[in-house]
Every structure is written in structure tokens, then in C-alpha cells.
């Protein structure tokens, strides 16, 4: 049942005579009331008929084409999916397809490249391992060669035992290792007495002609020990004997025979 007040509101509503707030409120009431909706629909029809009682005025004929044209242009913007497929409409799809194919080709090439790079990296790893193995083998060979050389050198070393010639120093012992090929050697002695600061021991290599050749001067430590590498002043063809003399500081050109401390071969 629609009361008189609601009928008034409905009449004002269809004539557009309600304020905005009143119109909103009435629209809400109408939404919830089917009978009111029906009533308003009938009044709307009355209003439409009433509005048509005005004098007839024809719109300009060109307005029809203008409106239809406007709608057509709006439709082109809004309804792109409904457009007929032509060359232009296919173009984006064709471009998209080409792009997709290009991406697939690039992807395949990328995969092949990655595979190649992977294979090459694997080969590089293998080569590195081989190089390491070769390096290790080379080092081992080098060590072996050095060992062999050392062995061969030891074979060629001349070992001479020097004995004390001094009566009050019987415990003195000395060894001279001589490498004739390299013309150098090592002299080791123990229990030699210490000398005053103005005196030195001097080592001599006696060659095959019995000529002494100076091989260096030395002092012993507090324990009477000395280890010295030596190299004679001139070429020794064959070392026949080794000797040590006590000399003035810095050594002399010819040994003082009466001051010979050690000798041996």
C-alpha cells in the first residue's frame, strides 16, 4: 500500500522536482518496494506522454548523420574486438607471432651456446687437471733428476779425511768433500783450538803436481768447530791432498809448512 505522502514524493520524483538528497532517499525507498516501483513506472509513462504534448520541432536533418558518425567513432574506440579482421588488424598479431618465433630461435641458440660453453668448460677443467698432473709429474721428474744428479755428484765427490799433525790436539778431526767437476767443496772440522785474533787457519788443496792452492781462511767457534764451503783460488785438475796451516790473519800465498795443523787425502 502506497500512502498519499509517498505518492506525492513519487510525483515530484518523476518530474525531477525533488532535491538531490530527497531524490536519493526516494530511490532507496523505491528499490525496496516493488509496488512503489510499479507506481513510479506508470507515472513516468504519464510524464513522458505529457512532455510530448509540446509543439513538434524537427531536429536538423544533418544531426542524424552527426550523431551516428559520433557513435561509429566511439564504437571504433570501444569495440576493438568486434572489428572485422583485415590486413591492418592482422598486423599486430603477425608482429606478435614473429616476435614469438624470434624469441624461440634466440632461446634455442642460447641453449646451444650454453651447452657449448658447458662442454668447453668441462674440457678446460680436464685440461687443467691434465696440466696439474703433468706439472706434478714434471716436478717429480725434476726431483728425481736432482736426486740422481745429487747421487751422481756424491759419486763424483772426493772425500778426504784430514788428521791432526799437532801433538797436543790428537782429537782434532776434519773431513773435506771435494767436487772436482764443480771445483768446490765443503770442509768440516772439530776440536780445533781457537786462534788469537791476529791468526787464521788456512785451507789448502794440493794438486797432482804437489802444488798447494789456497782454498780459504777460517776461524773456529768456541767449541772448536767449523763448517765452510770453499773454492780454490785456481783450477784444480786433480786434488791429491788437503791441508790446514796456521797463518797470519787473512792468509798467505804459500803455506807455512812448519805450521801445518791438519793434512790428509
Amino acid at each position, binding site marked *: 500500500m502506497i500512502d*498519499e505522502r509517498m*505518492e*506525492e514524493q513519487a*510525483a*515530484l520524483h*518523476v*518530474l*525531477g*522536482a*525533488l*532535491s538531490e538528497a530527497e531524490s536519493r532517499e526516494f530511490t532507496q525507498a*523505491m528499490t525496496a518496494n516493488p509496488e512503489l*516501483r510499479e507506481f*513510479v*513506472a*506508470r*507515472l*513516468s*509513462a*504519464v*510524464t*513522458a*506522454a*505529457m*512532455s*510530448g*504534448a*509540446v*509543439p*513538434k*520541432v*524537427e*531536429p*536538423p536533418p544533418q*544531426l*542524424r548523420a*552527426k*550523431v*551516428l558518425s*559520433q*557513435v*561509429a567513432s*566511439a*564504437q571504433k574506440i*570501444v*569495440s576493438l574486438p*568486434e572489428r572485422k579482421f583485415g590486413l591492418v588488424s592482422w598486423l599486430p598479431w603477425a608482429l606478435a607471432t614473429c616476435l614469438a618465433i624470434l624469441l624461440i630461435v634466440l632461446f634455442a641458440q642460447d641453449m646451444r651456446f650454453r651447452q657449448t660453453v658447458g662442454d668447453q668448460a668441462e674440457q678446460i677443467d680436464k685440461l687443467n687437471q691434465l696440466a696439474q698432473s703433468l706439472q706434478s709429474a714434471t716436478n717429480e721428474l725434476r726431483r728425481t733428476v736432482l736426486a740422481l744428479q745429487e747421487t751422481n755428484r756424491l759419486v763424483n765427490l772426493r772425500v778426504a779425511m784430514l788428521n791432526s799433525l799437532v801433538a797436543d790436539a790428537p782429537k782434532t778431526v776434519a773431513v773435506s768433500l771435494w767436487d772436482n767437476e764443480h771445483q768446490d767443496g765443503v770442509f768440516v772440522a772439530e776440536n780445533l783450538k781457537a786462534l788469537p785474533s791476529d791468526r787464521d787457519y788456512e785451507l789448502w788443496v794440493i794438486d797432482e803436481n804437489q802444488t798447494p792452492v789456497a782454498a780459504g781462511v777460517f776461524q773456529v767457534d768456541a767449541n772448536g768447530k767449523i763448517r765452510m764451503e770453499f773454492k780454490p783460488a785456481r783450477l784444480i785438475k786433480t786434488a791429491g791432498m788437503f791441508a790446514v796451516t796456521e797463518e797470519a790473519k787473512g792468509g798467505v800465498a804459500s803455506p807455512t809448512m812448519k805450521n801445518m795443523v791438519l793434512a790428509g787425502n
Partner: protein
Amino acid sequence: MRAQTDFVRVLPIFVLKTAGSYSFLTKPVNEQDTRNRDIALLRHIGARDRDAFAEFYDKYSTLLFSIASKILNDAAEAEDVLQETFMQIWEKAGNFDPNLGQPLGWAVTMVRNRAIDRIRASQRRNLLTEEAGVEFALAAKSSETANETVTGHEKAKLIHAAMVDLPAEQRRAIELAFFAGLTQNEISDKLQEPLGTIKARIRRGLLKLRDQLEGLL
């Protein structure tokens, strides 16, 4: 006065043009057919059917232009309003709800509101309101009304007669509301009548029209 329904009864024939697009070749025989056909047209317009839109334009453009012209009293502005209204119909047809009214009422409200908005925007309402007060909105009895393009001559004459039969104070209140865009309070001020009186006049006037036009609408 009861409306006569002696129109030629011809069933509407819908000719299938393309899938989902119809062309209405014949006129409907009664208001229910008209309403159904208009609803179908709006449905097709909502689906972007330009043929349906053109048919709707051909059917109602004269009526809507006449209303706009009456409200605005300016042909150029009425032209703009008609164009805007049909663009709005094109855009909003898909939202039309038949439960809330008939298509013609929907379109009339649209063109009326656009015309009134123009008046308000141009601050011309006072002048036009005065004009509405002295110039009767209805067409003279001898001249053609806008309804003739929609309902035909005979029916338009019946509607015109029903309007003429309304008591002058009721018709004037209704015209000030609809054609001048005045609110109930403004009409009350304009006519120097109590608000309740204005509401009652408008209600009684529309109900009387409804009763007189029953069978025609």
C-alpha cells in the same frame, strides 16, 4: 475520457539481419508491443548495434528535440542537448532496467535533465521560469505535438486533450517542475503557495493524467 484502442493490429515482424541483430519492419499494435520493442532496441544498442541505435534515433529524436527546444528555447542548444542525450543513450543502454520504467520515459528524463542542467549552468532559469509562467508549454490545439511522431495523430490528440483538461493550477505546477526545472520549494516560492499545496497539486494532476490516459500508455 477513455482512450480508444482502434489501432490497426499488426504483429511485429522481426527480420533477422545478422546474428543477434534485428530490424523491426512494422509498427507495433499496442503500448505493450512498443515497450517490448523499445526494450529490445536498448538491449541491442547496449550490445553496440548501430542499426538499433539508428532506429531508436529515428523513432524518438523529434520528440526529444521538441522537449529540449521547449525547455531551452534555443535551437542550437537543443541540438547540442539532443546529441549529448543520444550519446548517453549509446553509452548507458546496456544499464537500462525495464523494472524501473519504460525506455521512452528513461530517454525523456535524460533529455529533460540535460536541458535543465544547461539552464542552470547558464543562469537563465529565472528568465525561462518567468516565460513558463506566462507561456503555456502545451502546443496550441491546432498545431502538431511532438507525440504525433511517436504515437500517431489520434493518440497524440488524446494526450493533448488530457493535458488541456487538467486544472490550470495543477498543470502550471507540473510544467514549472518539468519544463523549468524548479524544485517543489522553488515552485512554492514562485507561485506563493504553501509547499503542501504544491505537492498536492502535482500529485493530483499526475494521477488524473494517469487515469485519463489509461489504456493509451
